[in-house]
């Protein structure tokens, strides 16, 4: 988690990161408030299964005292995709780390500038696992 925060603050490191199910950060996301809301939303609104793509779920300031992992607080709000496949379910969590979400919607995002180091420029994470 520390390297993601450092990459965001410094503007160094990759703009996009991918984490699979065995990664400790992905394990932290599985029990997050955002994923819990996504599971409940999916159960209520996709009674016949089907694919749900990039549904946005908010992370509220009141969630902060109850977070179970550092990565959950770092990611905050996220887009959740759920794909049932052959009796298993694929989860894909997409997150943008930017000044906007980090400030609880009070500062504007700034995109990274290609070829330049952009401190606090947007970086993107994707977490994928199968249950």
């Amino acid at each position: 988690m520390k390297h993601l925060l450092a990459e965001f603050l410094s503007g160094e490191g990759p703009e996009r990161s991918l984490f699979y199910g065995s990664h400790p950060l992905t394990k932290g996301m599985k029990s997050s408030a955002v994923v819990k809301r996504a599971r409940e939303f999916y159960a209520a609104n996709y009674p016949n299964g089907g694919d749900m793509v990039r549904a946005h779920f908010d992370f509220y300031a009141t969630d902060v005292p109850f977070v179970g992992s550092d990565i959950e607080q770092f990611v905050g709000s996220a887009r959740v995709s759920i794909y049932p496949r052959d009796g298993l379910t694929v989860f894909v969590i997409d997150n943008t780390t930017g000044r906007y979400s980090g400030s609880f919607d009070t500062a504007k995002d700034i995109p990274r500038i290609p070829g330049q180091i952009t401190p606090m420029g947007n970086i993107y994470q994707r977490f994928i696992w199968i249950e």
Partner: protein
Amino acid sequence: MDSKYLILIFVLLACSFKQKEKPIDPELLPGAYCHSHDKRDSIFVYPDKTYKHTYHRSDGTVMSQTNTWYYKSDINDIFFESFLFYNDGENVETEDYRGSWPAKPFVGEKGEIKLRYSESVYYVKVQEK
């Protein structure tokens, strides 16, 4: 209780009080929407419950898809069936992973209708049906 903890709790609660989103009249949903951060990305929501999603790539090609939409007033979400997300790079989502995209419609500060994609990204209605 220590006063600093009371202040912390107050700040957390204040930050979490977002204006409750009211359900939108479904009659207002049809129209042409433009992506807030990429003007090449548009969604045309038609009154007959179909939509058309187009993306004008920088190489001159136009990506496009058509399918159906429906609105659930109990949760104030519009669902776009078999939605594909486009971009100008090579990372176009594959047909295997197109699904129903639930978007939250809301009214902006200037009365414009927006479809939320993320915290700060949305499609905004630029033309009536």
